[in-house]
């Protein structure tokens, strides 16, 4: 004999509960938190290096950086900030709220204005796992091809900001920029799309977006 038990809960409720606690801790510490999601090689770490170089004397930025293995990205970022925590996920293809909590314990949150969580390089898995962030950023690059936004609608739909990196490669790679823009707009009409070249140090819009968000966050 069996009994049916109706439940109706989010599948990732336990992760969501932890994410909510993280969010509360971020709020209490007054730190603005973003979850940066992109494919391996999109330029996420390079963007953060640029960000730390540009903003080191105006805001305190911490980074939690997720990778399956090695501390290479953490070491790169540690040249620019003392507030870096590397998380190795092994076979895990994303960060979850619990991993972020453990990483947060190694940071002095109250000393930070911004915490950037660089997720494991992956366009699918990280999207479903809430970490407690204020904003989710989806990052693509020209070298990945112009169809990646359309092929990964879940990231585009849920992002608060979208970044297209490596636009300096446009003359050399078959990439229909207008097609890419249309795909993005079709899926998400509200998130800004920033077209940058981190390698050429052209990311002023990104720095403006980030500093504006922090100011807005401080005012509320």
């Amino acid at each position: 004999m069996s009994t049916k038990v109706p439940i109706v809960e989010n599948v990732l409720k336990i992760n969501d509960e932890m994410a909510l606690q993280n969010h509360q801790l971020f709020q209490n510490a007054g730190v603005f938190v973003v979850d940066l999601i992109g494919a391996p090689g999109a330029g996420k770490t390079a963007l953060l290096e640029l960000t730390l170089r540009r903003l080191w004397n105006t805001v305190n930025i911490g980074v939690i950086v997720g990778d399956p293995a090695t501390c290479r990205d953490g070491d790169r970022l540690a040249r620019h900030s003392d507030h870096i925590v590397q998380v190795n996920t092994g076979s895990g293809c994303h960060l979850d709220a619990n991993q972020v909590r453990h990483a947060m314990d190694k940071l002095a949150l109250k000393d930070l204005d911004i915490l950037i969580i660089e997720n494991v390089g992956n366009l699918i898995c990280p999207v479903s796992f809430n970490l407690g962030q204020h904003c989710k950023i989806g990052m693509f690059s020209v070298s990945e091809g112009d169809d990646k936004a359309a092929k990964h609608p879940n990231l585009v739909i849920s992002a608060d900001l979208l970044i297209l990196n490596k636009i300096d490669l446009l003359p050399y790679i078959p990439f229909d920029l207008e097609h890419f823009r249309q795909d993005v707009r079709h899926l998400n009409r509200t998130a800004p799309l920033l077209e940058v070249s981190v390698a050429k140090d052209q990311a002023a819009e990104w720095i403006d977006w980030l500093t504006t968000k922090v100011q807005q966050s401080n005012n509320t």
Partner: protein
Amino acid sequence: MHEVSIAQSLIELIRRYVPAHCRLLRATVRIGPMHALEPEAMRLAWTIATTEVGWAGAKLDIESPPWRLRCAACGRCWAPGRVDEACTCGCTNVEIMGGDEFQLDSIEVDTPVVPDRQKRVTSNRTRLHNTETGARHEHQSSNC
């Protein structure tokens, strides 16, 4: 392969709802295309995760509701094959109305069974009952 993490999270959530001494027989989830879950990978991950917690053989029913769009120009609602589909009126300004479902709907459990340890305790109590009072025995029986 986020199916493994999702299966483990699902099991962790279900454990809150399975009464003591019951065994999970089936879970029904509703997962929209937004979460890019591959059903066969999910079933494999589920088989591994349920076996690890002693619920081997528990079934997973996956309901997959489609994307649902609404045209901002003419108001037409439809379930497209692709989320970036334009409306038949030609408008590409469409609102996503559904497809992000990610829900555990229900579980099915078997009737409670008395675990071995409790059987032994009951058995001891029964012996006590024979030599001492009947109240104690009755109390233990009601726990089973």
